């Protein structure tokens, strides 16, 4: 009986403890929610104001009236030009990067040759080279071959800097594909090349798609190379568009907020659709630990 009582108070104690813990956790979660959302809220509501209404109405009040002209201004000032240039550069770079990194990962994951561990270690070591160290020589190189101020000058650096991480993840991924699949294909007369295109590549699809999302976000937002290698406004990509608009309308805060809103929107939509893929992509990276 006495034993039962202590058990019950123990149970009640732990119940109360857990309620307190959860209350603190929920409060903490809500604070984080507010901290995260306030800047977004600021950005969106102020993008619907007239230039001078912002200070008169106060930044936290809902706009009155909702002013959509800012978005019209942004769209008619070549916003989609910047947008499509980004789409072109990112998609070409991504496709090349995925092909080349899966090419490289295949022998590293599934062939035995003397230099294999050495080449693998060398590629992985490249992950920690900061791209800023290469800016001046790459600028020099692109100017020398006459590629400066062209979109194609971005593709090389984008692909190259995404490769080490991608080869690393894909090699780990391809190692998990059972050996027997290849062996039976080899008996059926497949050579290494056929093996790759008919067996390994299709089986790596899910690894490739997570890499595409992970690197796609990075390339879409890339600033330093784009800012260094591209100068003409009519060739600039989306991250540079923000600076371009800020330069032209530095005092018109609502227009700048409209550009910002439009530039994040595609990423948010993609994230909501592909969020599981993204988490998986980062999980593949986390396995590294």
């Amino acid at each position, binding site marked *: 009986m006495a034993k039962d009582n202590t058990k019950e108070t123990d149970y009640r104690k732990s119940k109360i403890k857990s309620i307190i813990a959860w209350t603190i956790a929920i409060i903490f979660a809500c604070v984080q929610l507010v901290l995260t959302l306030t800047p977004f809220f600021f950005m969106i509501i102020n993008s619907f104001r007239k230039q001078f209404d912002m200070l008169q109405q106060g930044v936290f009040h809902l706009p009155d009236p909702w002013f959509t002209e800012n978005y019209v201004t942004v769209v008619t000032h070549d916003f989609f030009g910047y947008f499509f240039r980004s789409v072109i550069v990112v998609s070409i770079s991504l496709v090349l990067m995925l092909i080349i990194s899966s*090419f*490289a990962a295949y*022998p590293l994951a599934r062939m035995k040759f003397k230099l294999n561990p050495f080449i693998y270690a060398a590629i992985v070591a490249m992950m*920690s080279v900061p791209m800023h160290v290469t*800016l*001046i020589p790459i600028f020099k190189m692109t100017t020398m071959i006459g590629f400066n101020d062209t979109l194609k000058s971005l593709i090389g*650096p984008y692909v190259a800097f995404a490769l080490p991480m991608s080869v690393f993840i894909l090699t780990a991924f391809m190692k998990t594909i059972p050996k027997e699949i290849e062996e039976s294909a080899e008996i059926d007369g497949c050579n290494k090349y056929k093996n790759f295109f008919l067996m390994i590549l299709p089986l790596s699809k899910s690894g490739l798609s997570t890499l595409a999302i992970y690197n796609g976000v990075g390339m879409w*937002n890339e600033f330093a190379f784009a800012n260094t290698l591209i100068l003409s406004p009519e060739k600039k990509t989306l991250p540079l568009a923000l600076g371009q608009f800020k330069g032209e309308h530095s005092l018109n805060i609502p227009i700048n907020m409209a550009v910002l809103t439009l530039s994040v929107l595609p990423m948010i939509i993609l994230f909501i659709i592909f969020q599981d893929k993204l988490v998986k992509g980062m999980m593949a990276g986390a396995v590294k630990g």
Partner: protein
Amino acid sequence: MKKDNNVSLARAKARSTARAATVFLIPALLLIAIFIVYPVIDTFVISEYKWNGISADRIFIGMDNWRALIHDAMFWESFKHNLIVMVFSILLQIPLGMLLATFLDAGGKKFNIFKIIWFLPYLMSSVAIAFLFVYALATNGGIISSLATIIQGKRTTVDLLGTAPNALYTVIGVMAWQFTPFYMVYFIAGYGNIDTSVYEAAIIDGATRWQYIKHIAIPLLGPIFKTACTMSLIGSLKYFDMIWNMTQGGPAGSTELMATYMYKLSFQQFNMGYGSTVAAGMFILITAIALIFNKLFKVKEDY
């Protein structure tokens, strides 16, 4: 005779494997050589010249730039800022990301909406974040100043980006806003890698959730924790995009980092020789710090 055949067959097979491996590896190795290895070497070469980046004539001045770098107070000042950013990034972003992930892991699917919203900042480009916060933290019509005005009941300005000691810590706060979601997802992935049977076994053995987190999950997350620290460390030492667009290193150089200093020298003042010296110095410092960290904490890398 038969043995001979076997040997040559094995050799032929090894040769065809080597040939296939070469074919598959060449594109990646070529690109890495052109865009990563060669530029790093070239940075060290250019660092020995006086060169404006445009004209064909560059003057070889040997170690002069390096001697200047060692005595360059601005460079060491920016390195100090990088170190401050590094310490605060590791202390803020990683524990906070871990807390959020723990909350999401404990809550399960029903907290998905928290995950989506918490992740949003990471989807914004550094440039967009920089511009958003330039306006959101402005003295005129910014969030903090407006809040202070409401609280004080009279017009109050809080200058977060415009004054010297504030600016660096403001930037660190904005960086935490940007990168905490990244570490959150990283730790979510880490929790996901722990087998659910581990949790079930702990609960059956009478552990509370807190005990499970403290004694089982966190030790299991150890390696991920170290990798996260390494990433944060390297990331803060080469940080550039957001600061460049938010403060350009100002006011009065108080948010100058190695990368912004290098960029300013090279692409605004067109002093590419010395800019390369700064870049090369940055490379040496980052590599050294990363190596020291790895030695100290023995980060296990499964190559």
